[in-house]
């Protein structure tokens, strides 16, 4: 990872359990607010890893301090990575000799404080040798967990909590949805498995896949990042292309969504001129428009998604039913379910077209990373001029 000066973290969306998100007032934040962790003993700026479950958030600072906020609270030192899910909390801890080999993976029940005995603990596998992430703006190191170091197993929120992965897959990144899994391998190929009833596997059918299966539709594309929502999937190619597939019930694929049109919220139905922020001309979609742009409930194989103004993607993250993408020029676009403010546009509307989060443009901040919890979004941004 390219060395970067610490940026500032922001959050927006659902915080009904008091998890660190922003000002901490109320149960949802509709626009980006600076992240503030209650009782934080460290500088929030230098977050190394952030993982948000529905009711709590786990933040690991670069110095190795883990902070939990929300329905789970507590702090611990000597942590390298954390993975938060509603049923399981996993922490990668340094061994007794500090960082390096001897690291241990611990799994905790969600309600347990960080003292006492974890559910289980095991030595973490050897670090992948000589691996380097590159790219101008990387994903927050929310990975490799749930992928275990060594990439021979991964975590799961449902038992069995630790599942083997065939080493021949050479997994680099793993993303988990509500019923499916996406794997990015060393060659930039994407594999998927699990439930497929909403098209989230991307193989063109609604059938489940018991084992990792290569996404043939993406062959020839070198993928740099994968992200999984509840029932949708997103990948970012090395050249900055975005592909989406899966369920579009709230517009999380940025395709015309019937539910939004019926609520008068859809932006889809081609607007000839796009405003600078890419919002498009909003107006009620009349029945004629609906006929022109057929609604898509399920997209069973990858579809190329164009961001407004031809922007290239650098990173992507998915919540349960929303999607967030960081562009190479440091802008953040969000779309999908917005009922809890997780899109960051200052309201609770859902959207089926990408919309730029204006807050960062207004404040002249460059977005460098995004990490979504199920119903919220965390963003890292720096002042321009800093790398």
């Amino acid at each position, binding site marked *: 990872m390219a060395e970067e000066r610490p940026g500032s973290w922001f959050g927006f969306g*659902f915080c*009904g*359990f008091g998890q660190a998100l922003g000002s901490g007032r109320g*149960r949802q934040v509709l626009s980006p607010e600076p992240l503030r962790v209650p009782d934080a003993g460290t500088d929030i700026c230098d977050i190394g890893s952030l993982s948000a479950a*529905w*009711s*709590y958030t786990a933040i690991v600072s670069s110095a190795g301090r883990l902070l939990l906020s929300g*329905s789970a609270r507590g702090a611990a030192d000597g942590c390298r990575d954390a993975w938060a899910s*509603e*049923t399981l909390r996993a922490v990668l801890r340094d061994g007794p000799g500090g960082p390096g080999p001897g690291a241990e993976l611990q799994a905790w029940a*969600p*309600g347990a404080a960080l003292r006492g005995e974890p559910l289980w603990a095991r030595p973490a596998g050897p670090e992948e040798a000589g691996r380097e992430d590159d790219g101008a703006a990387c994903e927050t190191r929310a990975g490799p967990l749930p992928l275990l170091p060594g990439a021979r197993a991964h975590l799961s929120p449902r038992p069995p909590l630790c599942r083997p992965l065939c080493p021949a897959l050479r997994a680099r990144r793993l993303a988990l949805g*509500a*019923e499916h899994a996406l794997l990015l391998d060393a060659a930039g190929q994407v594999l998927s498995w699990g*439930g497929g*009833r909403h098209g989230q596997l991307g193989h063109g*059918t*609604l*059938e*489940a896949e018991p084992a990792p299966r290569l996404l043939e539709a993406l062959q020839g594309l070198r993928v740099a990042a994968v992200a999984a929502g*509840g*029932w949708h999937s997103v990948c970012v190619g090395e050249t900055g292309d975005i592909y989406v597939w899966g369920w579009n019930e709230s517009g999380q694929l940025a395709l015309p969504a*019937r539910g939004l049109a019926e609520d008068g919220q859809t932006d889809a139905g081609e607007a000839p001129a796009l405003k600078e922020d890419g919002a498009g001309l909003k107006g009620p979609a009349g029945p004629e428009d609906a006929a022109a742009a057929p609604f898509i*409930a399920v997209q069973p194989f990858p579809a190329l998604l164009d961001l407004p103004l031809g922007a290239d993607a650098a990173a992507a993250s998915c919540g*349960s039913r929303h999607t967030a993408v960081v562009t190479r020029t440091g802008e953040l676009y969000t779309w999908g379910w917005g*009922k809890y403010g997780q899109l960051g546009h200052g309201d609770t509307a859902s959207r089926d077209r990408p919309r730029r989060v204006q807050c960062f443009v207004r404040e002249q901040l460059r977005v460098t990373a995004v990490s979504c919890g*199920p*119903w919220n979004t965390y963003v890292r941004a720096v002042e321009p001029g800093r790398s």
Partner: protein
Amino acid sequence: MAEDGNRDAPAAGLGALWGALRALLPRTKEELRLDLGESVERSVVLLLQQAADLFYGGRRSECLQTSEVVLDYSWEKLNTGLWQDVDKDWRRVYAFGCLLKAVCLCEAPGDATTVAAALRVCDMGLLMGAAIFDDILIKVAAVLQAHLLPGKRPAHIPAPEQPCLKKARNSHVSIPDLRSERAVPRLRCPSLQHFRKHHLVPQTPVILEGVADHWPCMKKWSLEYIQEVAGCRTVPVEVGSRYTDEEWSQRLMTVSEFIDSYVLNEPRDVGYLAQHQLFDQIPELKQDISIPDYCCLGDGEEEEITINAWFGPPGTVSPLHQDPQQNFLAQVLGRKYIRLYSPQESEAVYPHDTHLLHNTSQVDVENPDLERFPGFAEAPFLSCILCPGELLFIPAKHWHYVRALDLSFSVSFWWS
């Protein structure tokens, strides 16, 4: 839809509504507790307690917000995995959210729209949730429905020939010529033993006459009656020619909306209120039908019998498919053309090879592609036009194809 007859005295009207709803709920918050198993996460249990605390603490708008969170989260669980695998506890949680939301919506003075919205929430809880607190949602729905239709509930007026029925009849529906087809045999009020020996055991179809023709629904049900009893209730509707089509989808709407959009007014699309357990949702309708006595010949309990409503305009089609249980199909309104193929002909009906559709044939029965499905032409079958008052026995796993020739209402009983 329902007129706001309470406009003159909204406070009084809704005061009475609120009182009636509040009386349905337990007196104390301790009693409004669900016993939930391990699969419901601790954080959700906390939220449910919080919602109950807020409700009994008189903090309705906060309770409403918390209920929304409960609904949204449990909705995600309901949509994870196969429906039959969804843990019943999550459906209870969903119903709980619907209950509190529906009741909270009716606290402040509002209008018919608010009450209709609360009723919709109840219906969502009935459709997707599981029974809680002794079927409280049914009682809440009944109270809300009564409030929406003050004084407009005629009890048992027999329905004369409805002009709407004639208006709704579609002259473009073709009536098949059955002269060249083998007919489903008919029996008039056979004894249980006769039915068992000659049809249940050998698993052969038969039309039973004289069995259902005195059910109250045969005289009472009409488009108007259904509008009155169920018009404001939300139901799932299938839109599209058949469920094997790409353009097929399922939507939720009130029965009135369904009738307006897909039965009357020369609808553009085909809509079908199909395979819906309407009689669990609206117990009043259940009193108009009976469970055929022959179901007692099966192994299952009477409570386990699944009763579905099938209500739609002329032209609705159920593609050739098979179901795992025995089926009695009672015709109430209109006529249906039905074709039956024995399970022995399963190869000749070319089922889909996907898991999702393996119980559905690929063949369009009345317009078969004989190049792709050559064996279908010679496959033997039985057919009939099922008329009001008649009861068709479809043995388990028997392939059946159904097309409505008129505005049609059928009731199916799935039993084992």
